[in-house]
């Protein structure tokens, strides 16, 4: 999970930088505007790359959990939700600046993808879906999770699927 912690550090760093940047200066001096444009494009590229990394990590971890290679971890899923929350906080701010540059005819690459991430950072992230479902049934450490409806059909189908492996200890 250290990969996700790294992503979160990067996102916090971008957020700090955005707070310190005076985006209004772009109307005053062309040189300053160009410098800000370069900087903002870098932020956009960084956010897109970090989100792609989170997607790849989600796919790899989900694959490992589904194969029994890795255990589902409450801590790991919490890191992922933190990353998504940071995307939700950062993306609208960057997008707002990017839209303004774009309206004025400056090239902002990746703005379409940035719009998608800003609209729903967790779209297509499997672990986010499971983390939210887990939060809904979690009753604390001292009690088992609340019941989840499992149709009786699932028990009979699982019984059939497990037959070839029933002899294993």
């Amino acid at each position, binding site marked *: 999970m250290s990969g996700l912690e790294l992503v979160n550090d990067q996102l916090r760093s971008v957020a700090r930088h955005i707070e310190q940047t005076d985006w209004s200066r772009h109307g005053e001096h062309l040189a300053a505007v160009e410098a800000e444009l370069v900087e903002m494009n870098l932020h956009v590229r960084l956010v897109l790359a970090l989100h792609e990394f989170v997607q790849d990590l989600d796919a790899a971890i989900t694959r490992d959990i589904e194969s029994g290679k890795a255990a*589902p971890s*409450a801590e790991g899923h919490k890191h992922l939700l933190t990353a998504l929350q940071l995307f939700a906080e950062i993306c609208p701010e960057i997008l707002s600046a990017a839209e303004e540059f774009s309206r004025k005819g400056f090239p902002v690459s990746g703005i379409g993808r940035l719009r998608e991430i800003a609209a729903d950072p967790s779209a297509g992230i499997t672990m986010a879906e499971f983390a939210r479902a887990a939060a809904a049934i979690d009753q604390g*450490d001292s009690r088992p999770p609340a019941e*989840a409806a*499992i149709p009786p059909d699932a028990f009979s189908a*699982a019984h059939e*699927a497990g037959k070839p*492996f029933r002899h*294993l200890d």
Partner: protein
Amino acid sequence: MPHSVADAKQWEIWRVVWRHEDGTSKPRPALAVSSQAYNAANGHAVFVKITSQDHSNVPGRLKIDSANPDFRHTGLDVTSWIHGFDDQRVVDADLLDRLGHVNAITAVYLAATLKAIIPKG
């Protein structure tokens, strides 16, 4: 004190008498996956096997890692695997001891695994 299947809550780990097809049996940890309403209506609870053996080819399995902070709530001693497709109907006499429970994230993955096996159509 004897236990009743009405005591077994979904997502609890119990030590149960596990019956084999050759007529033998042995105590082992297992996870309750049926609801208390199901148990009450049917007179048995559905449990799935928990094993400390790492059988990488078994479908529908989930790992319970002793390195995870919430492992202590499982009542297990070592890293283990839930075999979601190796189920057994457990009656009152086969319920031995309640050991602990799995965490919520394991429960949702297992529920999804079981729902996904239902034939479509």
